[in-house]
């Protein structure tokens, strides 16, 4: 456990040492601020930060890949993977260390948006329990996003390739699937059974429908299971990739 934490700590400090960490933070804050001022902080509106959380993933799908791209890629490229893998740590510890490190930084990123809750609380009285479930939702969603980033980072020694692949995957989950399912539902107007099924599957795989409940203060096991199984799947795939690299 302490070795895993040592790895995680190095990842977090590594992101704070590099400009990437600060750029990620700045961009995130900029766009959350935009969401906040456009959707939440309106004259006469009720003090509900919900929309800010409901659409948060639209920012994070472009921000998380840059946090996670170097996790393994940079270790491969620099050759440090050799010092890591010849240390007495298991692949699982290595994986968990990287994952927890990236999650730690992710937490710092989403916690930075607390400033907007603070501003909101100066003008009104938001429902703090809803804020809490929203952050829980962001945390669970982050586990999925970070594990996807981690997977692509483990696949290649090129950071940019890792960032682009995870970005494409996250755009599919965050925007594309939902858009397609919306298009299938309304524009076509046909009611073939397999099309309906496809629509449901795509809608289930999309991120936004799962975030809505959290941002409204609802904890639905379906949403929690979605994020956890998704994260578990990609962590497992990353583990397989790590194992298989040994045999090349």
């Amino acid at each position, binding site marked *: 456990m*302490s*070795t895993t934490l*040592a*790895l995680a*700590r*190095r990842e977090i*400090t*590594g992101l704070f*040492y*590099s400009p990437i960490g600060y750029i990620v933070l700045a961009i995130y804050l900029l766009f959350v601020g935009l969401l906040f001022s456009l959707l939440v902080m309106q004259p006469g509106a009720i003090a509900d930060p919900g929309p800010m959380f409901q659409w948060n993933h639209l920012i994070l799908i472009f921000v998380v890949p840059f946090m996670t791209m170097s996790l393994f890629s940079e270790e491969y490229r*620099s*050759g*440090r993977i*050799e*010092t*890591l*893998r*010849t*240390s*007495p*740590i*298991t692949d699982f510890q290595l994986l968990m260390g990287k994952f927890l490190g990236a999650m730690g930084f992710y937490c710092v990123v989403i916690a930075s948006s607390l400033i907007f809750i603070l501003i909101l609380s100066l003008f009104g009285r938001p429902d703090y329990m809803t804020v809490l479930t929203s952050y829980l939702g962001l945390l669970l969603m982050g586990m999925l996003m970070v594990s996807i980033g981690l997977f692509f980072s483990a696949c290649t020694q090129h950071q940019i390739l890792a960032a682009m692949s995870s970005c494409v995957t996250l755009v599919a989950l965050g925007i594309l699937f939902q858009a397609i399912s919306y298009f299938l539902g309304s524009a076509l107007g046909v009611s073939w059974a397999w099309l309906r099924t496809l629509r449901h599957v795509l809608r289930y795989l999309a991120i936004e429908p799962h975030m809505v409940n959290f941002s409204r203060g609802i904890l639905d096991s379906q949403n929690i299971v979605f994020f956890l199984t998704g994260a578990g799947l990609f962590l497992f795939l990353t583990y397989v990739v790590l194992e298989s690299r*040994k*045999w090349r």
Partner: protein
Amino acid sequence: MSQPAEIVVEQLTKAYGKFLAVDNISFAVPKGMVVGFLGPNGAGKTTTIRMLTCFMPPTSGTARVGGFDVFHDSLKVRNNLGYLPENAPLYLEMRVAEYLQFRGRLRGMDRGSIKKRIDEVTELCWLTDRKRWPISKLSKGYRQRLGIADALLHNPPVLVLDEPTVGLDPSQIRETRKLIANLAGLHTVLLSTHILSEVELVCQKVIIIGRGKILAQGSPDELKQQCAQRGSGARLVLEIRGPADQIRSALAALPGIEQARTISDNAVCTVELSGKLDGAMREQIAAMVQQRGWALREMRSAGASLEEFFVQITDPGAAAAA
């Protein structure tokens, strides 16, 4: 060998597709010895070392480090091992002490012993005045030393150093060699290099590898002898005052001399001999020269250096011709 072997390699093979990077090699490294692993670039040194350090599994064969199998007891092997990879890859944004602390925690050391060992290894590797420096600001030599300090941190019985002196300036090379020589006895060291003088200076045993196969092994002196016995490399250079023609033909007539070549024939003539040049022969030559009334000014053996031997046995052209 009287000492128990710390590293035992048996029929180790690593294949990349059809290409055999390491081809069925076996060797042993006795406890407390500094052993040089010598070979030209691309001979399979790094591949062998990577298998020994559990970075990649062997295609076939076994390797045991400190009594543990690198495949089945990989974690125990890695616990007993300090490894300096080629080019000493480091986290450039970290500071020296911070990096060592991180490495210590990866190896499950407790805070107290990490602190104590950091002081010890930084002193041992002449890093004490650089402890607070960011690694990105260190020169190549200091980075290499930090890599060695890292390998030594948990005081492992076995050390594997992949080309530890590459990229260092001459004085740093000397210091690093001194450091490695000092480790003998306390640690078992396997040192990979393609620099021959390094091996002659610090190693008690040499393993020469080429094209994935072990070509020779033994102490540097043994290898020199082996080289002399092979004959082709060893030569004897004589400086004799006397008539050049007569000297040459007299020497060539001696039984066992394959070739006598006059290098210079001024008042003092220099002759180079090759063939069977053992002690008895040299005495015989000295006696003959004296008997003829010439003056023997110098007799030295040439070419029986490790370098010649190395070039001979690792050069594919020479091997094909032999």
